[in-house]
């Protein structure tokens, strides 16, 4: 039991201190890790929606894109500082999720598909509303992340710290919510919605809240991405990859656990970019697909539960070995 409390703390310290110390000077690897964390942030938000809200979304690209656009335009055209603008990007995505809320009445695949349609609508809006969004040509020279207390957050290590903090805060919020009474009610709603309603749970409102929260986190991540790469166009911001990669990462890592989506994103993205891409420059994504299938066959609940089971098994074997020796 106690080891379970220590492990996350060790992981957090490693992520904040060890990773930059070991890899901080390798710009290429650092930028890959930042990209992996970006996917990881969306994956956490996506898994949170599925696990607590009971909703499978194929449209998180919509929230990513809205967050990116809102934040980019606020900094460029309204002179907002970057961090408040990023929060506003998240809020913009949450508001955009309100538009998709009629879809909450739909169940299962219908919800998933309708939210996919919304992602396309937002992409079209970003292209057509030229006077606001600058249309298909996109937005150049989006302001970079600021320098805070002499520390340049737009540097590779700086942006690593920013996205890492965003993702860990999302995970902490997720963990807290899951343990709260609201989280319990959300869990119970999956299989026993009527019974949950008759004890006073406003289930539609809670689902809407979960969708807005998931959209908010995704929007903040989208905003981060805009200020990190300083460029945006509709096809990029609303690309289906912002939906697909997080889903793959979450399922691979274990979408039912809190750390699974992040672990999945780091493993999938880094292995893909550092290993597969080098010997299969074109079509390396296909290996990702194969890996995912293999994981689903091997351990449907994903990598994190698989590792946990293995660790428990090894521990038991070791203990048994001690007993046998004694």
């Amino acid at each position: 039991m106690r080891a379970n409390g220590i492990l996350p703390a060790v992981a957090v310290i490693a992520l904040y201190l060890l990773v930059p110390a070991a890899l901080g000077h390798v710009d290429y690897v650092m930028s890959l890790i930042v990209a992996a964390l970006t996917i990881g942030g969306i994956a956490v938000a996506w898994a949170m929606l599925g696990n607590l809200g009971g909703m499978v979304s194929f449209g998180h690209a919509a929230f990513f894109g809205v967050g990116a656009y809102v934040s980019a335009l606020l900094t460029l055209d309204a002179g907002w500082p970057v961090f408040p603008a990023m929060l506003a990007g998240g809020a913009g995505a949450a508001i955009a999720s309100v538009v998709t809320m009629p879809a909450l009445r739909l169940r299962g695949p219908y919800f998933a598909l309708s939210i996919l349609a919304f992602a396309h609508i937002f992409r079209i809006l970003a292209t057509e509303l030229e006077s606001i969004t600058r249309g298909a040509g996109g937005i150049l020279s989006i302001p970079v992340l600021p320098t805070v207390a002499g520390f340049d957050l737009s540097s590779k290590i700086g942006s690593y710290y920013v996205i890492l903090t965003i993702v860990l805060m999302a995970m902490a919020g997720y963990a807290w919510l899951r343990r709260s009474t609201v989280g319990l009610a959300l869990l119970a709603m999956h299989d026993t919605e009527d019974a949950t309603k008759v004890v006073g749970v406003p289930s539609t409102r809670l689902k809407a809240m979960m969708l807005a929260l998931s959209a908010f986190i995704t929007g903040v991540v989208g905003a981060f991405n805009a200020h990190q790469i300083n460029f945006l166009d509709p096809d990029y911001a609303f690309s289906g990859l912002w939906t697909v990669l997080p889903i793959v990462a979450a399922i691979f890592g274990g979408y039912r656990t809190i750390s699974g989506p992040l672990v999945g994103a780091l493993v999938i993205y880094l292995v893909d970019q550092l290993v597969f891409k080098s010997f299969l420059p074109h079509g390396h994504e296909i290996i990702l697909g194969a890996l995912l299938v293999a994981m689903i066959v091997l351990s449907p609940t994903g990598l994190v539960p698989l590792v946990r089971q293995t660790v428990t098994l090894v521990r038991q074997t070791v203990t048994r070995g001690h007993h046998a020796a004694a």
Partner: protein
Amino acid sequence: MLQLEDISVAFGGLAALSNVNLRVDNGEFVGLVGPNGAGKTTVFNVISGLVKPTAGNARFIAMDLLKQPIHARARAGIARTFQIPQPLHELTVRQNLIVAQKFGTGHSDPKRIDEILDFLGLTERAERNAANDLALTEHKALEVGKALATDPKLLLLDEALAGLETTGKRQFTQMIKQLHEETGLAIVIIEHDIETISELCQRAVVLDFGKVIADETPERIFRDPEVMRSYTGERSA
């Protein structure tokens, strides 16, 4: 406190309820009886909001009930149990009560939860998975527990006693009686057993084919041969 006026419910072509009138006063204990398929559960579904009537009105205290969403009715003080127990899935027994209390009353009171667990004999089972690890009696008790945790003014019990063996049933009946005497809660119970109804209720309402065919004291009702014929499911052609 509760008044149903000319409530009708149709499922497809089937008239499940026709012009049902039902009144429950403060602190009353009412039995709702009738043969299988008479529409008893449907009455509870209308009151708790799971079924929308095709016609009629309903008031609860000063509230136009039919305009309210399900959760708001629970908040206003209407609690129900399900004929087939529906524990909140993925939760422990205690968590079931915590959710019901938090959302049904708007606040948390762990002491009250302990009291309810104790009253229902569920203390030992509190940390068990509610959906998977309970016996039938315990499931029935948890149904009542969820309802009580919302601190209701009106409690609707749908065959809370059915399926229990004799001793269990007697204990449960006494428990419900005690609950009514101590709290002055208004209760409506759906129950087939005549003795139980006679022991618990001041008034019984008989439903047959979706219609109220009697609304009297239990003694009078169970003396009426016409009612008894429908009640036992015998029908003259």
